Structure formats: C-alpha cells, structure tokens
C-alpha cells in the first residue's frame, strides 16, 4: 500500500518539475499575484536581462498597499504622495509593457491582493500560489499551497513560472469543538500563535484540521490561514470540502460547465489520506479560546482580553525577558495592568486578515445603535471594491457612518503605514490587522491586534473591551 499522503504532500508532488539536487526541487507555480511594492525591482531585473514574463495567463496584478482609501474615483491622479504615485505608475507601466492582466484601482475588482484572489475565484484548491507578500498563506483556506516570496523570487517566477524550493515539513494544527459566543476565527489564530510562538511553525506548512475549522466559514478560514506566517509557518492549509466548492462555484474566474466537473473531481482527491502522519502537531480545544488581544510587539504576545499585561520579572530566559521588557516599554504598559483598562485613540477595521463581508457584518452588529467614543478615530476599510459594494447593499455603511466610523475605499490602509492612513503621534490602536510590530501602523504607534467585533467594541467604549459584555 502506498504511504498515506497529506494535502501538502499531494500538492507538492503534483508540482515537482525536476529535482535540483541536495533536497531542493524545481516546482511549478499555478498562480502568481503581484502588487506594486515588491515588483518594481523584479521587472527592472527582467528588463536588464532582456527577459519576458513566461505566463501572463497565470499572473494577475493589483495595487493595494500605497493607494489612498478616499477619493478613489480620481484614480491614480488621487495619489498625493509622490513615492506612492511613482510605485503605482511603475506597476501600471510594467503590466502594460509585459502584458500582465491588471485590476485598475478604479475598478470594483480592485482590492487587497489576498482578498481578491479567492473572491474572484482565481485562487483554487490544489494550486501552488505565490505573491511577494508574506500573507499569501491566506489563499491556503481554499486548499491551495500558497506562500510569500521575496522580490528575487518574484523575478524568478515571472521569468520561468517556477521556483527552487525545499519541501516543507507537515504540522497538524487541530482544534476541536464549537466557538463560544463572541469568539471569532481571529481569536482562534491568536490563541494558536500564543500557544506555539512566532517561530513555532518555522520550516513547516500547517494543516488546520478538526471540527472547529470544518464548521468555520470560508472567510473565517481565510482569517486563520492569513496569520500562519505570524507563527513562522511557510503556509497554512485547510482541506477543501463542500463549503469550499460552494464558495468557488460561479465566481468570475472559477471553472464552468464540463471544466467545473473535471476540476471538482480533482479537488475531491486532495484532502489528506487517512493515517497521514505529521512532523509536528498542536492541539487546542475551542472551548478554551476566549476573545484575544495582543499586548506586545509581536503577534505571540497575546492574551485573553480578560487577562492582564504580563510581568517580565516572572520570565526566566534572559533574552525573552528583555524582549518583553522592551515590548512593554514601547507599548507604554506596566506589568499586571488589566487589559480592559487600556484606552485606545484609534480603531482600524480592515486588512487582508479581517476586511471581508462577514468581518464587516460582525463589526456592524456591535456598532449598530452605538457611538464611537469621544477622542477615538475609527476607520472601516473594506478589502475590495466588491466587498464595499455588497456592504453598501446591506446598509452596513449607514450603520458605521451613523455610529461615527469613517467608511473608506478598498486597500491595505492602516495595516502598514505606506499610504495616508496611519496612527499619529504614537496613538494606541485597536486593529484587526495581523502585525503589531513597532512602528508598523505609524511612528510609535501602539497596535493591539483583535477580531472585528472586538475592534468595534473598542471603538464604542474607547478602550480594549470584552465584546461579550456588549451583547
């Protein structure tokens, strides 16, 4: 009997073109997503070497990081920062020159690269998907092997549609049981990262399994897979199932008719074989997961919102203690402070982690009939033009606007301070994004990661809050 293979093993095996010697392989890439920040130097490299793009039909471009989230109708002319403008113009020039398909920023199709892949039906089960962006693991929710690469590798994929890679190890992340009231997929992934650490997955690909993920919506699975990199994993995967297929069906770039049937038959062969073994495992019980917030400067520095800021004096390892001391100094938090007593000045609901329609619905349910607290600026930034449109159809924009939130156009926005949206003067931010690194959301910005309903709760109370208390 052949050895049982995991979902990762099956995708990997199907994409090996040739061994490269010494444990590395040349593998084929089915879909390459590109954006304005990590591609200018790659296209420049192609030009210098006189190379072209091998498969424009497997490449899609979009601008998301640099673009303003207001006045979208103005198009590229609406970008007022010269460097941002240059980067977007460079992308537009390159896609034209190399014949790469592109979603223009005035199009409804435009959005954050990791939101539009699944939304358009471009990201499909069993594919290898890459992007010059570490949150590419998001597409793993579709049952695709999706991972982030550097700019040299972007150039390599553009030129050859392949990558030189060593196979990853398999790690099973199993969570069983139903989520408690007010507990979201974001809390699940924050709890996983807090348990295994930011390097817990290094060299591994996660397979998220167990009833919690089976019962989770596709959008929830995307939130979880999105943050696989924050635990150091190369990628995160969820086995494709009927939910995946129902999600795919009818999307603009999904296969249709006979091709759909053929694809479906292939997709059904992908889940891990019974008896598959994993190099590493982590098990959690959903019942133990409470709404989480981060208190420090990397995503493993997280705790249930009902908890307290830790005391570095209790940490034995000197380097870890120094890291926590440094984090608390940056975050201006004293040990043992109740997390629910920490005030915020800014709230950001958006990013490739939590800007899909379900996220906006969850936030709107808390915002409805309430007001953003005095002294708090709160932004809601949909992940794509289509998400924005759908939210408006459902009246979510009215709920947010009436509550005093700002309602913006699609983009990365405040997730990373590359555009006009950033925290000012070291403000403290309740954010649904994925990284709380020093300075990421603005100079001295103090970021607390959490789910969308929790962020809305922080907006209306003006402090970190347990969404379960708001009902």
């Amino acid at each position, binding site marked *: 009997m052949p050895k049982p293979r995991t979902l990762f093993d099956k995708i990997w095996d199907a994409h090996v073109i040739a061994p490269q010697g010494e444990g590395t392989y040349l593998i084929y890439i089915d879909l390459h997503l590109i954006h304005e*920040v990590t591609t200018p130097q790659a296209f420049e490299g192609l030009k210098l070497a006189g190379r072209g793009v091998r498969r424009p039909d497997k490449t899609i471009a979009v601008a998301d990081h640099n673009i303003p989230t207001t006045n979208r109708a103005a198009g590229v002319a609406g970008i007022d920062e010269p460097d941002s403008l240059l980067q977007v113009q460079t992308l537009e020039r390159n896609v034209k020159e190399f014949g790469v398909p592109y979603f223009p920023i005035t199009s409804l199709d435009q959005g954050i690269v990791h939101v539009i892949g699944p939304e358009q039906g471009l990201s499909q089960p069993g594919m290898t998907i890459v992007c010059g962006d570490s949150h590419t693991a998001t597409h793993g929710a579709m049952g695709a092997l999706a991972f982030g690469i550097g700019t040299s590798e972007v150039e390599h994929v553009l030129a050859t549609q392949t990558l*030189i890679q060593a196979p990853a190890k398999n790690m099973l992340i199993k969570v069983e049981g139903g989520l408690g009231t007010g507990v979201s997929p974001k809390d699940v992934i924050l709890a996983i990262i807090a348990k295994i650490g930011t390097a817990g997955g*290094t060299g591994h690909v996660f397979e998220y399994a167990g009833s919690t993920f089976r019962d989770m919506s596709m959008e929830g699975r995307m939130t979880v897979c999105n943050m696989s990199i924050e635990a150091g994993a190369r990628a995160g995967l969820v086995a494709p199932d009927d939910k995946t297929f129902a999600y795919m069906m009818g999307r603009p770039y999904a296969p249709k008719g006979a091709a759909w049937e053929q694809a479906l038959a292939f997709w059904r062969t992908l889940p891990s074989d019974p008896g598959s073994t994993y190099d590493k495992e982590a098990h959690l019980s959903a019942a133990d997961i409470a709404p989480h917030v981060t208190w420090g400067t990397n995503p493993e520095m997280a705790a249930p919102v009902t908890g307290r800021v830790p005391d570095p004096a209790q940490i034995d390892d000197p380097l870890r203690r120094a890291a926590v001391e440094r984090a608390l100094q940056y975050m201006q938090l004293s040990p043992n402070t109740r997390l629910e007593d920490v005030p915020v000045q800014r709230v950001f609901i958006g990013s490739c982690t939590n800007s899909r329609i379900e996220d906006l619905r969850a936030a709107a349910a808390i915002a409805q009939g309430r007001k953003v607290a005095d002294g708090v600026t709160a932004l809601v930034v949909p992940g794509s033009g289509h998400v924005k449109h759908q939210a408006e159809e459902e009246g979510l924009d009215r709920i947010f606007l009436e509550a005093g939130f700002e309602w913006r156009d699609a983009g990365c926005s405040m997730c990373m301070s*590359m555009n006009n949206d950033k925290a000012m003067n070291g403000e403290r931010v309740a954010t649904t994004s994925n990284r709380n690194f020093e300075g990421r959301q603005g100079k001295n910005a103090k970021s607390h990661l959490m789910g969308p309903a929790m962020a809305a709760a922080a907006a209306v109370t003006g402090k970190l809050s347990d969404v379960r208390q708001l009902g």
Partner: protein
Amino acid sequence: MEKFTQLTGVAAPLPIVNLDTDKIFPAIYLKTIKRTGLAQWLFQEIRFRPDGSENPDFVLNQAPYRHAKILIGADNFGCGSSREHAPWALLDFGIRCVIAPSFADIFYNNCFKNGILPIAVPKEVCDELMEDAKKGANAVMSIDLESQTISRPDGEKVHFELDAFRKHCLLNGLDDIGLTEAKNADISSYEGKAQLERPWQFGLTQKASA
C-alpha cells in the same frame, strides 16, 4: 550576484529575539523602486533618534561596529514581512553574513539571492560567538564557505551546516534564473502534462483587462 568565498570582518552583536524585517527595514521606506542605496534606512527606528541623530547606544553606531561585515543575532532572525529590502539594506551597509540560532524561512531564502550567507548554529555556539562579538575591535571573525567554518577571534574553528545547492550557488555567484532557464525543456514538458490534467488552470487570468 557577488560570489561568497571567504569573509573576514568585525562581527556585531545583536541579541534581539524575533528581530522582524519591519525593524530591519521600516515599511514607510518600501516605496523605493530601487534595490541599492537602502543602508540609510537600515534599522531606522533603533539606529536613529526621533530628531534624526544617531542613537549612540545602538551597536552599529559604535566605532568598530560601523564597519561590521557580520551580524550575530538571536532566535527567529528576520521574521515577519517577506520584504527583500531587509537583505538589500544589510548588504548595502556592508553586512555579508548573519549568524543566528534560527532564521525565519523567507528572510533566510532572500539572503542567498543577494550573496549574503545566513548561518544557523546551535544556540550554545551562538552564545559563545555573541560573547566574542562583544569584544569591540577584537571581534574579528573569518568565514570560509568552502570548508564551512567560522574562525573565532581566538583562532578556534567552528563548523557549520549548509545545503550543498545553496553553497554551490553562493560560491560561484550563480544567478538562479539562468540555472532554471537551462531546464526550459523540463518546464515545457511539465506544462504540457499539466495542461492535460488541469486545463482550467491555463489561460486563467486572461479575462481581466490588460
């Protein structure tokens, strides 16, 4: 890509666990469309004070370490964002080798593409090298890639592991793309087979307006 054979230089101690690429190269400077001249923004937040002057406490602002060619780091070096600007900025500053107990995968990969040698050594070994690196002007180490050894300031040699393919590429300064292009026939035959098995994945993005 510049070859990497031997390197001798000052090693700077940087004992920060989970040193992320946002810290190595802040997001706000990612707007550049160049890959050179990035050293000015390297470690921006910890290297400079808010008024733009140098922070004298930061190791790379101290006399012997200004010309460091080697960094001794801590666990999970280079985690976070995939930005290749991090190794580009290190290279531009003059760093050709980073030694740490463990690296984040993407950063590790990106180093090799730019002629930087990342060396993973066991924690106990790294602790000793960290102590060596604190010796200021005497913190001079040599790396020999061919024999896979680090020579400590006292002359003691430490062996390190590295996969043979990456070693070969670094030693010869090989361009990955050129190597892959030599396999064009393999790629084309794979594509032919894949197009039969998974035809719906071909022509995939063509519907979008170019």
